């Protein structure tokens, strides 16, 4: 590690929105040659702070110093000129241009005003080699995986300005191998003296990668710590402001598969989306976990049950009666509900209000000719807001203005209002903060205790183990192993995922 001097120094940064304090008097010091994690729940002020640093917002107070001189970045371009680059969760490059052109967009090598395409290609190839990325730079950016696109964005950011790189949730759409590749590159950059700030929800990554970390809560800084010296429990309690109650596992014994009166039973089910020969059954009050790697068929099982894909073979029985889902409307009528994986495109209806987003599934169930009275709606919304602890100042706000965790709770509230028999949750805790995460897990348990059947697909094995009484491990669109009751443990699930055919 190089010298411990501060590259970026924030002093007393404040930012208010319409009287609401988003960031309040935050000091932060980012040193050359360190990877610094910025942590906090959704709504803690992380994003706002980053946007102040990168010039998206003008601060209402405080100083930003870069290498000892005060700067006032006017916009992200200006910040980049000062040497501060940002890579966002969603890749913000142009998918319809080549990789090479994306790398040098806006700063193309020119001679007599004409772009030197050859030089641009050569430079781009050389630049990506430094990142261990050997790809054809003339291909369109969109022809590569999200991971590669992310790396291209990082390469561009680093090449533009090597002083400070800010990464906002860079690993949300990457798989384990890609994450490792990204981390290697970040470590190399750190050793070259770049200051890196990382925003992430994954605590494993924080301990794996970062040197120091800063925790924010409710717009204020809780503290800056040396990562290696801060125990995990202490970190979580800093983030939540309270000790996370250890969740005791109250697991019910698994029921036998042959039971004819099972709430839900799948026999040799295959769907148009590729899942083949799935067999399992679930009783009332069961929580069934769907585990497996990305693309293993977890989400496809959910989609088939909810009538999004057609059944090509096999059968589904509900309480012993045959059930052939034709459409989501049909599935909902049979007592199903689905919280989809991609909240933004399949879940929330923006710009409709929080209230409308909550009651709309129940309203759709009733039909257009039997509207819920406004007083009923307000009552339902108030109940759900209290029950799920949704933080929302005004239910008439467009849903897009809520944080990710609160949006997810609104979607959950939406489906709970339909009183489903079988609730399917596809990645219910993706991209949400730890507080909401724990609350959603508690809710899953409570619903099971009330007799609802839950089917939860998740990439977080730890969370599946915490509440499932049966875990189905998927591989290559098939059900590879079923683990039930006392046999459930993280190691058992991991072993089943990793086990060779």
């Amino acid at each position: 590690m190089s010298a411990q001097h501060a590259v970026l120094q924030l002093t007393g940064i404040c930012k208010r929105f319409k009287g609401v304090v988003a960031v309040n008097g935050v000091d932060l010091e980012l040193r050359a040659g360190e990877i610094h994690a910025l942590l906090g729940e959704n709504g803690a002020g992380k994003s706002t702070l980053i946007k102040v640093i990168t010039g998206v917002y003008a601060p209402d107070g405080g100083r930003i110093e870069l290498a000892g001189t005060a700067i006032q970045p006017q916009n992200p371009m200006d910040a980049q000129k000062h040497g501060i680059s940002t890579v966002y969760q969603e890749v913000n490059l142009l998918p319809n241009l080549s990789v090479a052109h994306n790398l040098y967009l806006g700063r193309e090598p020119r001679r007599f005003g004409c772009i030197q395409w050859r030089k641009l290609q050569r430079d781009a190839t050389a630049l990506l080699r430094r990142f261990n990325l050997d790809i054809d730079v003339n291909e369109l950016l969109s022809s590569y995986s999200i991971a590669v696109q992310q790396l291209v964005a990082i390469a561009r950011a680093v090449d533009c300005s090597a002083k400070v790189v800010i990464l906002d949730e860079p690993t949300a759409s990457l798989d384990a191998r890609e994450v490792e590749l990204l981390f290697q590159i970040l470590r190399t950059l750190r050793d070259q003296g770049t200051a890196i700030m990382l925003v992430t929800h994954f605590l494993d990554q924080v301990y794996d990668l970062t040197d120091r970390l800063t925790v924010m809560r409710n717009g204020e800084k809780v503290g800056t710590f040396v990562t290696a010296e801060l125990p995990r429990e202490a970190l979580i309690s800093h983030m939540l402001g309270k000790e996370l109650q250890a969740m005791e596992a109250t697991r019910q014994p698994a029921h036998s598969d042959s039971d004819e009166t099972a709430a839900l039973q799948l026999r040799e089910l295959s769907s148009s989306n590729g899942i083949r020969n799935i067999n399992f059954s679930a009783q009332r009050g069961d929580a069934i976990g769907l585990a497996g790697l990305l693309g293993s068929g977890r989400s496809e099982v959910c989609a088939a049950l909810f009538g999004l894909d057609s059944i090509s073979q096999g059968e589904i029985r509900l309480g012993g009666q045959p059930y052939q889902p034709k459409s989501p409307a049909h599935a909902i009528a049979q007592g199903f509900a689905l919280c989809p994986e991609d909240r933004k495109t399949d879940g929330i209806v923006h710009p409709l209000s929080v209230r409308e987003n909550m009651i709309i599934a129940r309203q759709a169930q009733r039909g257009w000719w039997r509207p819920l009275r406004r007083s009923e709606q307000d009552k339902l919304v108030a109940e759900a807001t209290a029950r799920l602890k949704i933080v929302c100042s005004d239910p008439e706000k467009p849903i897009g203005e809520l944080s990710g965790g609160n949006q997810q709770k609104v979607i959950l509230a939406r489906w709970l209002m339909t009183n489903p028999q079988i609730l399917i949750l596809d990645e219910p805790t993706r991209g949400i903060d730890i507080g909401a995460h724990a609350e959603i897990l508690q809710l899953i348990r409570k619903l099971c205790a009330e007799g609802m059947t839950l089917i939860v697909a998740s990439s977080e094995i730890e969370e599946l183990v915490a509440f499932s009484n049966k875990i189905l491990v998927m591989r290559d669109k098939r059900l590879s192993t079923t683990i039930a009751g006392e046999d459930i443990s993280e190691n058992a699930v991991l072993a089943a995922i990793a086990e060779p055919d």
Partner: protein
Amino acid sequence: MQMTNLMQHRLFLPLLALALILLANLVVSPEFFHLQFKDGRFYGSLIDVLNRSAPCALLAIGMSLVIATGGIDLSVGAVVAITGAVCANLLNSSFDAMFLVIAAGLLVGLAAGMVNGSLVSIFGIQPIVATLVLMVAGRGIAQLINSGQIVTFQNQSFAAIGVGSIFGLPSPVVLALLVFLLVQLAMRFTALGLFIEACGSNPRASHYLGLNVRVIKFFVYCVSGICAAFAGMVITADIQGADANNAGLWLELDAILAVVLGGASLAGGRFSLPLTMIGVLIIQAMSTTIIMSGMEPKYNLLIKSVVILIVLLLQSPALRQQLRGLAFARGNKA
């Protein structure tokens, strides 16, 4: 604080724009707000503005719903022409019973809406292309029905749709008002309005909610077709003849403009029929101002577009934010 609340209300800007234009009318011709009651009906410039707005208002009601689903209906002007041609020819035939003629006109509108609706919702053709087909073909159909002539008719009871009066108001105004109330009630006292807005805001999520997005899209084009049929009958009855070439020509664009002036997004989502109606009145009141000011007609289109541009710019969120930023900076310096 209350002042800012008032200014942020979504009715504020459109109403302000309308008020300013009416004020301009008052300056140009002081007798603008004079109302006379003669022979059982009101006369005056205001009534004239309302009367001339009626066809565009009828089209804009249907257009609001279509635009709310993220679509657009370019064919309504042509549907006006077909409806006019069908009605005029029936009135000249032996099937000239009033209810028959009106039912035939409405059926034509419904059929046109069903064609548009199926192209968009069943075959998945982009709305602007799907309705462009009928926009072009529709005038051709109307010309065929009219055999290339302007078909006139003598039928006082049908003409009353265009020139008669009910409760002292011109019948087109009453008709537009009734259709407006009917559709507004259907939208806001059932869940239809919510479902249409949901489909336009996020069709994928709406499908996941169990809403039948296709049926909803099909439905709004049908409503738009029927609204266009009403407008077609008003225009035909007004001149007691069907002109396939000019009836409702470019009126679809005025209707789209009215919806946009009412603050709706062409990408779909929120819609408001009252705001659309204000948009219609802005367009018509402005045309009246220009005529009454005695300005040379060659300036009409230019002035109209400049005023509309100003209204649209004032509604643009980006511009509003920049204006607010300017005000903020000034406040800081002071």
